[in-house]
């Protein structure tokens, strides 16, 4: 677009008045805000001596956890919906036939690259059995990249650590066992 384009409407800045020219009113307005904060309660937290208290840990999107079912087994059914929904491709699942008679499929391995994750929460939204959830743990650190790739055991350990403070958002139904149709089988 050229400056002489007929679609461009040129607007002139209004001329400044005497108060504007002295900057006094603007200075006073800004300094009032500064003074207000100088005397008000301080919001800075001296981390890590003090931890940030999350107002609602249930909606915070921090480190993932893998929930356990009523029998303490991993709740995940290895449907791959979280890794399909994941925009950062950080979830890697290897599915296998489950060793339990009442379950069909389970994740043999389940790893999340916490460094690659963007903590968007799409995985927990996609999960049909509420097995993956984001906790309010935010101060995640590690000494190596490998350490930050969380495997199944580590993710289950996060659940054990946080289950009391952050209960599962939905109780979640256990899968119904096979139906007896009454017919010959």
């Amino acid at each position, binding site marked *: 677009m050229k400056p002489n384009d007929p679609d461009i409407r040129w607007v002139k800045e209004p001329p400044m008045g005497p108060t504007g020219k002295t900057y006094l009113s603007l200075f006073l307005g800004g300094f009032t805000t500064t003074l207000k904060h100088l005397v008000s309660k301080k919001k800075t937290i001296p981390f890590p001596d003090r931890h940030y208290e999350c107002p609602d840990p249930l909606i915070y999107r921090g480190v993932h956890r893998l929930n356990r079912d009523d029998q303490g087994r991993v709740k995940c059914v290895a449907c791959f919906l979280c890794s399909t929904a994941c925009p950062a491709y950080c979830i890697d699942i290897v599915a296998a036939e489950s060793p339990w008679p009442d379950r069909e499929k389970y994740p043999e391995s389940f790893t999340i690259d916490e460094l690659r994750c963007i903590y968007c929460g799409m995985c927990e939204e996609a999960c049909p059995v509420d097995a993956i959830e984001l906790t309010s743990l935010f101060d995640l650190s590690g000494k190596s990249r490998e350490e930050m790739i969380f495997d199944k055991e580590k993710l289950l350990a996060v659940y054990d650590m946080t289950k009391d403070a952050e209960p599962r958002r939905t109780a979640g139904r256990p*899968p119904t066992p096979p139906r007896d149709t009454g*017919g010959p089988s």
Partner: protein
Amino acid sequence: MIHITIDNRPLELRDDERLNCIEAARRVGIEIPHYCWHPGLSVVASCRMCLIEYGMTNQATGQVEMMPKLVPACQTPAVDGSVVVTNSVKVARARAMVEEGLLLDHPIDCPICDKAGECLLQDYHFQYGQDERRADVRPFTSRRRDIGDVTLFVDRCILCSRCVRFVREVSGTSELYVSGRGAHEEIDVVEGFPLANNLSGNVVDLCPVGALGDKDFLYKQRVWYLKRHAAVCTGCSAGCSIWIEENHDRIYRLKPRENLAVNRWWICNEGRYGYPHVHNPERLLLPRRREGDTVTTPDWTKLPRELGERLRGAGRMAAVLSPFLTVEEAFLLCQYARSIDPEAVLVLGPVPVVGEDEVFPGGFTIRAEKCPNRRGVEEVLLASSGGLRTLESLLDELDRLPFGAIWVAGGYRQPWIDEPTAQRLARADVLVVQDLFPSPLSELATYALPSAAFAEREGSYVNYADQLQTAARGVRPPAGVRTEGSLLWELLSRERMYRASSVLEDVARAIGYFAPAAKGVGPTGIDLRANLLA
């Protein structure tokens, strides 16, 4: 001419075309949903998903007389004057009701079902079903039963009976049957007679829902991650059209690709489960140079020049072309051998034959000849050397006259050469061997070059009945492996990249037998015999 009206769209069919309403509607781009109907099986009209409104034009008055009730499209022939309505409220409601009925008994365990993503029940429910479920049925875990070659998830079944008709009509083995009546109907096998035949894998493809599961593929990968490539099965000389389904260069399954000229809708288990050799770690994965007792790994970038120099200095040359090569690769190898030694001896490698042809009642045949391209390589050899010679005749000649260089293009899936034969071939000063797996011959070779597996190369194959088909590359070869085609392309100092399609054009121009391929090859291939008759 047969004149039909489908949703107010006119359609004309030839007089000898006998289509049902599903096929006729497809011609005008209207898809009528169906579960139980399959073009390769008999019609039972049991699923009721394809119900349509049907009428007939009264030839005398020109009035359309509609039938009072809905009729199944699969069982209704598209005859002259037919009027089909698929977009009315009545039809939409019938489809929704069928979907609701099927889902009453369905476990809805889509998250753990291998079919999810390519399931007709899912697709049709999304497209034609109701938004809400009126029945209070909770998802449950399907019962599972091992019925032989495949696994059956009993409660996921919608009783379309495609699998039952398949084992009766195509494989002719009749292992499966429907037990029980009404709501208790289930697919089952008789105790002691499990589903076990060489076509059993097809019932998994036929199953519109996740009731029949492939034991080889079960829980390995979700189907939406798979990418498919149109290829040709190289398990036998039938050359069935297949899809190679892979993710991240790993093949997860092979599926039949519809090709009425070759395999129709089926492939055999041998071909279907014959892909693991592609990922076998025992494959030759690096080129090897042997000088005396020292074995070194040459650099691929310098190897073509080195090979050319060694071969040119060696004197008389012979090339052994295996029937696993594509037409293009065979053509390039013949050209290369001739460019080094105009009198080069070109012979056909051993053709593996195992047992006898297995013919099924449905017409499907598993060929005894376990290689994909004997006909194609034969024709290339005939055109290049004027006669067809076998490895035996080369070995006889080798005893009388020494050869300077021998190039053996292998690519066999099974062990194919014994120690004495290898010793005789190794008498040449320079022995170049391309093969998939280590063999006595590759151990003795001056240059043992890794060969690409069928899924890793592109090219054409000519099956036993002279049908030429082209296959696309499914996966990339492992690092350290170069396809025969691209290596020969570089050896011939051609410009740019190796592309099988452009080589095939050269082949079609140079050899009369392949002339029909000059105009391009469609997805179902072309019959080269048509050219021979003309």
